[in-house]
């Protein structure tokens, strides 16, 4: 039954992404200055929002783990962060492609980009730390603390365009500017694509959580077998 719900949600996100693709490629017009490359924003911004959301879930789950000592929260944290890292990579790659087209360079050391790179590195560090600790209790504890530490860089990345004058474009979405910076249709498709990517991320997180629970069960059995 649960499998079926997961499949249905996965299919739903695929269908939603397809509808969005149709909208952005065939319905919406080109942007005046950027031409058709502007469409990358429909994946770039939602991918970053999705990874920020995933890291937020990871941080909250980590706090809950430290408070309640329940391993399901640790499972949730690692699943969310791993999926978050994947979306970070999507955000990085799409941003780079856009930059190459618009600025003529793949990368520049502007505060927003630098913080984004730092965030990526910090979370790669999280995944590496997890791999290098054998004891499950210490692994869960230490990585929970690291996840909370790491979330500070997410907050700075998000606010970087407000705190520094960046080459990276400033905020355009209504909830940050108060309106008037982006066409309503453009914005609506952007939010819809964020919804679709969030759904996809949620499905991936649940799948990853199941794997993690299975790994934990196998580890437990192995210890049990060694103990006998």
């Amino acid at each position, binding site marked *: 039954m649960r499998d079926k719900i997961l499949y249905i949600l996965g299919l739903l996100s695929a269908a939603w992404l397809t509808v969005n693709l149709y909208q952005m490629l065939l319905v919406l017009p080109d942007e005046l200055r950027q031409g058709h490359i502007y469409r990358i924003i429909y994946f770039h911004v939602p991918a970053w929002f999705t990874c920020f959301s995933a890291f937020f879930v990871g941080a909250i789950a980590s706090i809950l783990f430290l408070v309640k000592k329940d391993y399901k929260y640790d499972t949730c944290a690692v699943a969310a962060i791993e999926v978050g890292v994947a979306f970070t990579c999507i955000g990085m790659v799409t941003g780079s492609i856009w930059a190459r087209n618009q600025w003529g360079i793949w990368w520049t050391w502007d505060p927003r980009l630098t913080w984004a790179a730092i965030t990526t590195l910090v979370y790669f560090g999280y995944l*590496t730390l997890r791999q290098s600790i054998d004891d499950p209790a*210490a692994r869960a504890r*230490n990585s929970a*603390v*690291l996840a909370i*530490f790491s979330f500070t860089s997410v907050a*700075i990345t998000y606010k970087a365009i407000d*705190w520094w004058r960046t080459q990276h474009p400033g905020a355009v979405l209504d909830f940050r500017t108060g309106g008037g910076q982006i066409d309503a249709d453009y914005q609506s498709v952007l939010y819809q694509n964020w919804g679709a990517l969030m759904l996809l991320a949620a499905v991936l997180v649940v799948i990853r959580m199941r794997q993690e629970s299975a790994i934990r069960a196998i580890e437990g059995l192995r210890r049990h077998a060694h103990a006998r």
Partner: protein
Amino acid sequence: MRFLQQTYTIAAKDLRSEFRTKESLNAAASFALVILLLFSFAVDPTGPMVREMSGGLLWIVFSFAGALILNRAFARELPNDCLDALISSPISPAALYLGKAIASFLLVLLIEVLCYPAFGLFYDINWTNNLPYLILVSLLGTWSMSVVGTMFSALTVNLRLRELMLPMLVYPTMIPALMAAMKLTTVLISGEPLSDNMIWLKLLIGFGIIFTALAVALVEYILVG
């Protein structure tokens, strides 16, 4: 009051044991001088470039040499199971952590005190233009480095790849503080006023406060569980 006394005891113990063996201090000092020397081959040591990148150069030296000291903060307690004894002693984990952070802070500062004149000497730069502010930035930057480094030293103390994992985790997390310290140091050594760069000073202070609070609140989970 008791908390402060415990913190002081741990810091004094760490400093005493470090000054008796000098194991990380000697290594960090010679490593810092080696990097300072190596940089003279990377850039023209007599050109104007050096002044422009002085902050970056110095803080890379401090953070590389500092990692050697920070690595020892908790690893020092591993032989003879001293860490278990410390954790089971009637000292709060936060005091244990803060004591170690203060000891590391003072040791890294000692390396910096050595490096500034050496840097001035090697590269013929007058680094004392804005000395009071330079001291302030060094104190703030080093405190940020020690807070994060000591925390991660506790995180990685039981790992086989400790020496590798610590820098891998510490440097990315420390970048905000390092960036601010580098920028401010360059400005101060060049003799420019600090007033145009207040955002970096705020960043440095904010980083120190946030990470000190986070570390003190969370260290118990790492050490005790």
